[in-house]
């Protein structure tokens, strides 16, 4: 696997990008900051495929209306994000809003969420998938396996 320092990578960025598109991963190191962790330059498509194949979202209806409770509550097991509503469809929509908001806050404050002692650190790759949908509701419905409402 090719290792490059930052200066070399800057000079060859166009050809590196072209090679990365074919599947080659480049590992970048900063000679001035020897203790910094390494950074990979890798095809976005390959990363997307890795996430799609290895990560799936699963759900549980933790509340359904009863005499004392009027709401549906949908719980996502992987991220601990929920949605509530007076119907299943409304709860799913609430979940979609909540998870997009969580993804946005998460990526705004990566040092907090990626801290080794943060239990939500493992949400990273799930939320990356949410961000890759870029707010497109059709893609989000597909990602979570929800059937679009008629």
């Amino acid at each position, binding site marked *: 696997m090719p290792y490059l320092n930052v200066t070399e990578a800057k000079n060859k960025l166009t050809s590196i990008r072209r090679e990365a598109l074919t599947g080659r991963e480049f590992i970048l190191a900063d000679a001035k900051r020897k203790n910094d962790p390494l950074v990979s330059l890798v095809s976005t498509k390959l990363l997307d495929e890795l996430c799609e194949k290895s990560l799936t979202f699963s759900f549980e209806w933790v509340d359904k209306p009863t005499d004392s409770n009027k709401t549906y509550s949908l719980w996502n097991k992987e991220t601990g994000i*929920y949605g509530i509503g007076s119907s299943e469809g409304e709860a799913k929509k609430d979940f979609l809003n909540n998870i997009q908001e969580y993804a946005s*806050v998460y990526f705004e404050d990566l040092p907090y969420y990626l801290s080794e002692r943060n239990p939500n650190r493992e949400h990273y790759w799930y939320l990356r998938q949410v961000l890759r949908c870029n707010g497109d509701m059709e893609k989000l419905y597909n990602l979570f396996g929800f059937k679009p409402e008629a």
Partner: protein
Amino acid sequence: MGYTFTWDDLEQICCKLGMKRHGKSSIWKGVGPDGIMRTTTIHAKHKGLIGPGLVSKIAKEQLHFESVEEMYRFLKCK
């Protein structure tokens, strides 16, 4: 015994745990006196009681209490 919580109760619990709302979002996060980093979601539009199933998930998985009962005691203790 069944414990009930409103969304306002949940907000109070988050404040006691040292959590703060992230900007104008519905996301609350922060590090508690016990050093645990927590995150939860509280919507201003959500009113009234939280469903019992959801309370249990929020208590144990988001706020890291041992049980709903422990969260209830934490809320009631001054």
